[in-house]
């Protein structure tokens, strides 16, 4: 009985003040604008898919309806995977993203724990400095970084990217994890300390298991950030076999003035697929990572 009332109350609070609105009004103020938003936001993806499965003849024909495809073909994908270096670009992107994500995550866990929980002398200032570091855009760093990368002999290697991506990943992950660690009660740590646990044991056995959602959020977000990175990869890499997907599609698939739209779209689609799939599995984590970094 109590349960039923509760459920009804829940339903009422879910609907809020919706009952004050008539259906036509709801269509005009909610469904119609939302439909337009969704259409505009998704159209480029639809267009990518359509273009990538059209034959060349169909792409340049002016007859018929461009929104549909008459004879779908996977020729562009075959061309991409067999005739170009696409598989190795993909592999480069995976290696660089995974390695830099895990490196940054490890460094950030220690940093965030130190700032938030050890509260060493000056930890407040360090925390602020981390936030400031997050605001430094890559566009003003790539020139001096290029000079450093060349000096270190890392130019045109994956290491150049693996070592520079943490400059934007660490500040982000640290800032996000600081928020998560803050939400873990101090008392848990105090109990462990009284029981004789070392700081290391506390970190590994208490804090980290409780912060798993935060670690996933930070990891997913960091992975997409490094997958999408453009300006460093464009500046520090010049040979085709070391390029990452976003760079390679833009620089290697465009030959002269003839644009091969089919392979270009197929390449863009394949390059977006890994992040899109990953995102679809971890939407909640991704969103909480994004909004968590902003809300603090």
């Amino acid at each position, binding site marked *: 009985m109590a349960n039923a009332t509760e459920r009804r109350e829940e339903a009422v609070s879910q609907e809020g003040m919706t009952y004050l609105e008539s259906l036509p009004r709801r269509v005009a103020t909610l469904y119609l604008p939302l439909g337009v938003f969704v259409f505009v936001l998704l159209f480029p993806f639809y267009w990518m898919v359509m273009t990538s499965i059209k034959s060349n003849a169909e792409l340049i024909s002016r007859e018929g309806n461009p929104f549909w495809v008459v004879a779908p073909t996977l020729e562009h994908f075959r061309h991409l995977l067999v005739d170009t270096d696409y598989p190795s670009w993909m592999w480069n992107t995976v290696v660089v993203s995974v390695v830099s994500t895990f490196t940054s995550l490890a460094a950030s866990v220690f940093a965030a724990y130190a700032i938030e929980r050890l509260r060493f002398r000056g930890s407040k200032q360090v925390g602020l400095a981390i936030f400031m570091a997050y605001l430094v855009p890559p566009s003003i760093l790539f020139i001096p970084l290029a000079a450093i990368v060349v000096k270190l002999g890392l130019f045109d290697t994956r290491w150049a990217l693996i070592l520079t991506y943490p400059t934007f990943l660490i500040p982000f992950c640290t800032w996000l994890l600081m928020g998560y660690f803050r939400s873990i009660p101090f008392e848990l740590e105090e109990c462990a300390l009284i029981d004789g646990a070392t700081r290391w044991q506390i970190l590994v056995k208490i804090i980290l298991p409780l912060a798993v959602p935060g670690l996933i959020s930070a990891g997913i977000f960091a992975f997409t950030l490094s*997958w999408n990175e453009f300006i460093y990869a464009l500046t520090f890499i010049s040979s085709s076999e070391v390029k990452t997907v976003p760079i390679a599609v833009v620089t290697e698939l465009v030959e002269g003035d003839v644009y091969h739209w089919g392979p270009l779209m197929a390449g863009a689609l394949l390059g977006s697929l890994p992040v899109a799939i990953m995102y679809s599995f971890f939407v909640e984590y991704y969103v909480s990572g994004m909004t968590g970094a902003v809300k603090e």
Partner: protein
Amino acid sequence: MTKLLNNRHFLGLLFMLPAAALLLVFLTYPLALGTWLGFTDAKIGRAGQWIGLANFRYLAGDSVAQLSLFNTLFYTVVASVLKFALGLWLALLLNRNLPFKSFFRAVVLLPFIVPTALSAIAFWWIYDAQFSVVSWALVKMGLIHRYIDFLGDPWNARLSTIAANIWRGVPFVAICLLAGLQTISPSLYEAAALDGATPWQRFRFVTLPLLTPIIAVVMTFSVLFTFTDFQLIYVLTRGGPLNATHLMATLSFQRAIPGGSLGEGAALATSMIPFLLAAILFSYFGLQRRKWQQGGRD
């Protein structure tokens, strides 16, 4: 040793070490080096000599650099205002009682998560002078008679790149603001409605004040990202036609890497810093939580 490891000051510094080392070598040092390079005549493969303000003086008189400053400000202001307006609208729509809410939220964020360079290629194709699907649709509807030259004409190119930037930025603004909206208790709206507040008044006196702190942070990020945007322009126009879409970031790349004048490029990049600081300070002091939100006076 054990004693040292239980000292939180020592342990704290030890834990900070990996992050601090990476950031000092690859963030703080480059930041300083970049500023220094701006005052030198460094070229690729040649260490520079200190030449004082010569780079900045040259850039101040350079018509392309002036144009890039104008473009950057125009791009940032127009794109940010529209991203805010559309993002807030979308957030308000998604905050309403809606079937398949989480599905819509997930779908809406897609433009933000795919690599910008790759979605920019899709826009490049949509903006193609001969095969643009937008032109095709408009012609079929009888609204225009000739295909639009989206990226070939200076003002068309500026507006087209801004449109692509907005497309990518709206989801970010919307989802962040939605997270803010969800923290506002529905009972506030019910109380306001009982007191006879119109929907506009509910928005103006309940939603907006409670959302202001988040708006401040989100828009700071949005302005920073837009001001320093690089990849969208690089993919769509490379700064053309006639430098009409060069932003400061793309021009500094152009001058420094293909052009080889590291010093000049660094000077251009350094000149973005005051603008970024101004944006951060403005949002910090202008939009932070005000007294009137807690019932006090301004």
